[in-house]
Each structure stands twice: as C-alpha cells, then as structure tokens.
C-alpha cells in the first residue's frame, strides 16, 4: 500500500497548562481534501501549523509521504522550509513591500531557479488565477478577492506536495466566498493536490471536503465523509455543530416499548417513537437525547387518522422567511422546535400547527457520554 500523504500519530500540543491538541491521530491519502472543522480554539489551526512545521508539537509523530518530519521520541524536527508544503494564510500574508510578481516569485528565487524559468512560472501562475494584468501591483492596491488569488498563486507555483489552507475565505464577503469556494474546489480537481483545509464554517466543510475531521477541545470528535458526518454524527457535539438551523435536541427518558418493538422516548407529557429496536442498552428510564434535523420535520394538516404517532400540536413562536425556505420556530410544551420548510405557506405567531416527526429521522444520543447510540 502506498504511503499516506499526511499521517499524524498521537499528536499533542500544550501551551503552558492548556492542551490545544490532545493525542490526535489520523491519516489521508493522495488527492484527499481533508477539512479540519470546529469552533474557534478547538486546536484545528494548531494542527495545521504543526503539519506545516511552524509550530513544534509537544509530543507525537508527523509523517509526510512516509517521511518522518517530526518525532518527539527521536528528536526529529524538519523545519517548515524543508517540508515541501504550501500554506495559504487566513490573512493571506502577502508581503506589502513586494509587487504581486515578487510575492509569487519569492519561493522560486529561494530555490535558485534561473530568471527565465521564474518569469515563466510566475506568469503561468498569474494566468491560472486570472491575474495577468496585476503583476506590477502591490498587494494593498488590490481587493480582498484578488489578494486571495495572489496567495493561492504563490502557493501553486512552488508546486508543494501538500496544500495547507488556514481559513482562507474567512476574510471575504459572502458573495466572493461562494465564488472562491468553487474556485478552490476546481483547483483541487485540476491539480489533484492533497489538501488540508481549516475552517469553522460547516457549509464550507460540507461542500468542499471529501473527508471531515470535526474537532472540539483539542480532540477529533468524528473523522468521516461529509455525508456521514451530517447523517450519522458520532456525538451530540457534531450533531449540534453541523447543520443550520441547528438540530433539534429533546431531552427525555426511554419509555415503555412502542409499536413494533421500537424504542419510545418520553419527555414532559409527550413521547416520541423512534426506529431503534428496544432491549439491550435501551433499558427503561435511561436518559437520552433525541435529535431531529429541522428539515426532517414536516407540517401536516389535520391530525392524521392512520398514524397518530409522532404528530404533535405546536404553537408558532417565530417565523423567519428566507427566500426559498422558511425557518419556523415552534413551541411544543416547554420545548422549542426548529423547522426548515420549503412549502409556500403563511404562518402567524400564536397559530397552532401539527407537525410530524418520522421515527427513522430520530437520532438517539446517550445523555451521559454524548455518543450516538447504535441502532
């Protein structure tokens, strides 16, 4: 089997008493687009910087294409300049005293390429990023989007083995961000370069990555394909972090068996049927959190005669129409429910509506561990 492009083993980083990265291991293959996703301070940027060689880990090992570039035990630390990685910074880190041309050429000059080659490569990079007319400008004379392109071009021309990107889109406005997202995905498609990308934007992660590592408090909560992360969040944290509006969480207890030997969860005066098979770990009175994605709940007209199960009468609290879709905030007893609906319908505050929660859409999490329970 071919070597992993990036492999991290038991990586830990402490800043004084704070553990920023806690014993993390993962690996990615050729052409992978890995996104490290998590809230600020979860350690995702620290991991990226450790892979780049800008931060020295406290312990663990890092391999790049099978070559050991860091090992605490063997006292190996290959400096950033010798690791052959490219990095796009959040702030782009373009050198303000150099023209666009010089910015892009810097890495090539360091490699002592001859001037003709440098010129040719820089021009290619500029053309690739549609910056042909810009080579004599200074970074501060350009828009944020253009600076971003220069930063990408600077990384591309040095042909690194791994692309590293640290929240590259977070300084752009919403529209430009969408464009650049497509552009970066396209670059990845064309170059096939293995990429590690850091972001706190879950939409960015879901749309661009083929692997996502969801991080929290220095640990990876889940390392999986984007779809799996969305549909089968390993922990309550992942379920909560991914998806907008956020997933509905209902705290309850496992009740008596429902129809067909499936688990029922009771909360307040209500109970909800799931498609988890009863028995085993699902003992009576076990505390669980039932989670349902907002788009999986639907408004139903009259209380359906055939399946009175899982139909609830709620009060409309807030209506947030947003173009093609509408977010409904409902009250079910003491609990708030978020719905994402695409029907064109008018709702008024205080109005009562019936909603249906399909049993198969309910995910159960163990209240104690926060982990997703197996069906």
């Amino acid at each position, binding site marked *: 089997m071919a070597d992993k492009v990036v492999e991290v083993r038991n990586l830990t980083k402490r800043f004084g008493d704070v553990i920023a990265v806690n014993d993390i291991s993962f690996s990615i293959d050729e052409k992978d687009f890995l996104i490290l996703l998590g809230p600020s301070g979860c350690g995702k940027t620290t991991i990226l910087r450790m892979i780049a060689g800008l931060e020295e880990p406290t312990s663990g090992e890092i391999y790049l294409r099978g070559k050991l570039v860091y090992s605490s035990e063997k006292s190996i630390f290959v400096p950033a300049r010798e690791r052959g990685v490219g990095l796009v910074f959040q702030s782009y880190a373009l050198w303000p005293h150099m023209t666009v041309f010089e910015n892009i050429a810097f890495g090539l000059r360091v490699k002592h390429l001859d001037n003709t080659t440098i010129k040719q490569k820089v021009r290619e990079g500029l053309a690739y990023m549609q910056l042909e007319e810009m080579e004599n400008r200074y970074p501060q004379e350009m828009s944020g989007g253009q600076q971003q392109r220069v930063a990408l071009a*600077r990384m591309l021309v040095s042909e690194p083995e791994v692309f590293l990107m640290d929240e590259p889109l977070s300084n752009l406005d919403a529209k430009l961000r969408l464009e650049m997202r497509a552009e970066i995905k396209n670059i990845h498609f064309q170059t096939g370069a293995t990429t590690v990308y850091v972001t706190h934007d879950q939409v960015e992660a879901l749309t661009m990555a083929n692997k996502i590592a969801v991080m929290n408090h220095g640990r990876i909560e889940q390392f999986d394909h984007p779809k799996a992360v969305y549909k089968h969040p390993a922990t309550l944290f992942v379920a909560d972090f991914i998806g907008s509006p956020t997933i509905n969480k209902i705290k309850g207890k496992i009740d008596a068996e429902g129809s067909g030997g499936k688990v029922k969860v009771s909360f307040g005066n209500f109970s909800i049927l799931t498609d988890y098979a009863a028995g085993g770990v699902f003992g009576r009175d076990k505390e669980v959190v039932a989670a349902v994605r907002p788009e999986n709940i639907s408004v139903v007209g009259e209380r359906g005669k055939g399946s009175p199960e899982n139909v609830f009468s709620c009060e409309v609290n807030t209506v947030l129409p947003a173009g093609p879709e509408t977010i409904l905030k409902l009250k079910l007893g003491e609990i708030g429910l978020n719905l994402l609906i695409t029907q064109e319908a008018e709702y008024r505050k205080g109005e009562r509506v019936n909603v249906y929660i399909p049993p198969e859409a309910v995910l159960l999490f163990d209240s104690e561990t926060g982990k997703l329970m197996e069906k």
Partner: protein
Amino acid sequence: MFRATIRKPHVIISYILLFILLFIVVIPFFRMVWDSFIWHFTDIRLARGVNPGAFTVFHWKRIFHSKLTRNVLIEPLFHSISTALGISILAMTIGGMLAWLVTRTDLPFRKTIGTLAILPYVIPSYIHALAWLTLFKNDRIGGAAGLFQFLTGVSPPNWISYGFLPIVFSMSLHYFPYTYLLLSAALTSIDSRLEESGEILGARRSYILRRITFPLVIPALLSSFILTFSRALGIFGAPYFLGSPVRYFTLSTQIYSNITNRVPAAGYILALVLIAISSTIIYFNQKIIGTRKSFVTIAGKGFRTQLTPLGKVRYPALVLIILLLIIAVLTPIILLVWQTLTLYPDDYSLKHLTLLYWIGRGGTEFAEGEAGILRNGAILKATWNSIKLALTASILSGFFGIFIGYAVVKGRGTKLSKLVEQTSFLPYLVPGIAFGALYLSLFTNRIGPIPALYGTFFLVALVCIAKNLPFTGRAGITSMLQIGSELEEASEIAGARWGRGFLKIILPLSINGAISGFILVFITVMRELSLILLLVTPETRTLTTMTFRYQEQGYTQFSSAISVMIIVIVVIGELATRRLTRKSAI
C-alpha cells in the same frame, strides 16, 4: 524543550541583546554604585587616611550626614523639585489650554497653530535659557548686561535675571508642547459618541465638558504632568545658565560641579538620588495611571468631533496664542540672532552690529583671535562631530530598536521577552547628566580587555545610543507588531532560511516604520547637552558642548551663533521627518 527553544532565532537575538544591554546599561549602573563606595585619588584633599580604591562610606556620610548635607543635597533637591513642579504646572496649563483650543473648538487657523505649537520643543531646551539671559541678564554678577538693561538702563534684580523664576518660565515655554501633544492625542481619541450620548440626554456643552470630557482626559492629564515633572527634574542647561551664577543649584548642576571639581563619588551619589526619584515617579505613573488610562477609549481613529464655538473670545484667544508663539519661538531666535551680530556683548545698538562673529577672519583685535564661526576650524569640526554623532547614534540605535522589537514581539508572553523590553527601557529612568556620569565612572579606566574609552568618539556615541534605546525600542516594537508573524512564516513556508526572511521581509518592512524614530534620535542627539557634557574632550566636542563652553567663558556671541546653527539643523531634520512620514518627529 531546550532544543526547541534554542533553535528559535528570536531567542538567540534576545540573549545577544541582553548581553549588550548588560554592558551598556546594567554594569555602568552598578559600577557607579560601587564607585560611590570607594576612595578616589582626588579625595586626598577632603580627608585623611585616604586609601585609593579601598571601600569607604565616607562619601555617603558626607552627602547625607554632614555639615555639607544642606548645601550639597537638601537645597539642590528642594530646588530641583520646586522648579520641576513649577515647570510642569505652568507647562500643563499652557499645553492643556492649547490642546483643547486646537482640537475641540472653532479657533481660527487651528491646524497651523497645531503645527507651530511644537516648535519650542524642537529647539534645544537651554536655548530658551540663553535667550532669557540675553534679555534679562544684569551686570551684578559680572559680565555683560542684557538687552533689557541696554534699552531701559534699569538693571533687573537678581530674582528676574537668575534662579527659580527664569528657570520655570523659560523651561515651561520649552515643555508646554510636550503636554500639548499628549493631551491633544488624548482629546482627539475620545469617541465623540460618548459626548453625543450626553447631548442626546439633554446635557449642556459646559456640563458635558465638565462631566464627560474632562474626566476622560484626567489620566492623560496626570500622566503628562508626571512625565513633564520627571523630565524637568533632570534638566541641566537651564539651571546651569540661570541658576549657577547666583549659586542656585539643582541636583543636576550639583552632579556636574562635583564631578568637574573632582569629587566624582559625590556626583555619583547625587546622580543615584536623581535616578531614584525619577524611577519612583515613572513607576507610579505606570502602576497607577497606566491602569486607569484604560478607560480612555482609544480606538486609533480620529472621530468626527463637534467643535465648541468660542463666540466672542474666538479672536482674543487667537491673539493670546500668537503672542505665546512669539514669546516661545520667535523671540528667542531673534534675540539669539541679534546677539550674534553685536560687537560688544552688552551693546545692542544697531550701529555696532557686525558679522565678525560669523565670518570674521580671527585677527588679534577681538575675541582672543577666534575666527567667525563659519571660518572657525574648531567649530566646523564640532559641527562635523555633531552630525557624525547624531547619524551614528540614530542609525545604530535604530537598528538596535528593530532587533529589540523583533525579540520582544516574537517572544511575546515569555519572561525573556519581558526582560529584554524592561532592560531596554531602563535608560529612560536615568536623567541625562546622571547617565553621562554612569559612563564616566565606568569607562574612565580600562576594564579587563576593554581599554579606557574616555575621550573617544565611540564612548560619546555609545552613551547616545544607550540613552535613546527606550525610544527606538518602543518604535521597533510598534512597527514589529504591525508586521504580523504570518509574513515571516510565509517566507519560511516558501523555503527561505531565517536570515533571508529577516533581510527580505522583516528588515525592509520595519525600516519603513522606524524612520521617524531614526530622525527623532537624530534631532535628540543633535541638541543633546547634559548627556555628553561630561564625556566629551576637545577632540570629540560637539556644537552643543561648544555653546556651553563659550557661554561659560562669556563669548555670548559665539554661543548664540552656534545655537542658531543647531536650530537650523534641527528644524531641517524636523521638516525632513514631516516630508517623509507626514508626522512630527517628536
């Protein structure tokens, strides 16, 4: 961990800087303390049983507990404190009013006035003192009388010519721009929304000024008072020219006369007293006001402020300010220029005006054969020395500052970084004359492999570099903070070694930011007197120290002419700064 730390270049730089700082700041201090505890050869005149080089508390006893204590310590201390208090109160009143008028009212020509208002601070402080003498000198002490006596025939009493009043008055005129700058910065940085909220709630202008604006600038006000006070405490030129002739001594002039009268240990002890007082003051400024300062809502941006209409007093205020500027800037310069043109020091009549002191050939008929300053080899040499010194000191301390900034900013949060920052700040606590004394005490004799540096240009340059480190270090830190670590990391990612990244990225970027700091040091050194006075020899003397000598010997025309030259050079420097950086060097 050790391996990781040692590899970081900023850590290595920190250690190198600390090592240098140890030599140019820390060791001189301890050497001076030590020197105050030993017998010196010259002490043979003072006591019996003198054993040069041996330990003694004789000098400390002599200063703190003897018949001399009153004259050597108590009175000068009292004079230092009272003049410093007077100067800072007067300067703060003038500077504060001016700051408010310029930043917050509809005073006419506010911008121009704002620019002109810092000029008194640009010219060397002792020039105000010399101008005062030119105007109000009387003939009782000896020497030529001033313009006032020439015009009116009345000899001014001593309290007008010398001592407390003239020192306070002339130095306030020098220091008010300093308070003006600090306060106008504070005033412009107040978020105008704070005042507008008051207005929305129905408060009147005067009420807002009293209850919102004023309380907000109180910390800046206190801070500028304390900073002015600590600077005024160490001034040397003015109390020397205006105090010493009537035996009105301050600590700094006592230090000078003790050292020149060959009782260095006494001078060192007084320098330590002066250092102790100014460090205490600055410490309290940092501790107490430094924390309170936080509520001045500095956002870095100029807010649109509503200007208070002055109404009827608009023009009277303008006239007052113009008068102030005439007194503080124009008069001293005119007086000095006039003085340079007088044939006899006390004869200001137009028919006796002459250019002899500027371009005279130096015959035997006057000034003991000294040629006019534009033909005088010694003076041209001093000019060259001054420029050479200012250039050397500003370039070297500027680079030093960049490295300090790099080490401090890269190591942010570590003890090492703090240590470098604090050590480089130490010279700020030491008044110029005392700093000169430190160097005199350390470098007069050879220490190990280092030869005696006294009398060399290197020593004079070194003291100027060290004394200005707090400013260039600050400037270095500020500009390094603006650079951002990612720019350097990006070069590392691109495959560049540390040296290349530093040369190609850090240095070009920080030099841009450091250039105003560089010119500030140039101007400061150009007008420096007290710091280098004890260290220069005829070989290394500068324009400022020549002024001092000529003034001492009564050749007021020469001293005035040299002062005029210094003003010209310094003003050119200041204008150059504005050209280059669009802001003032001060």
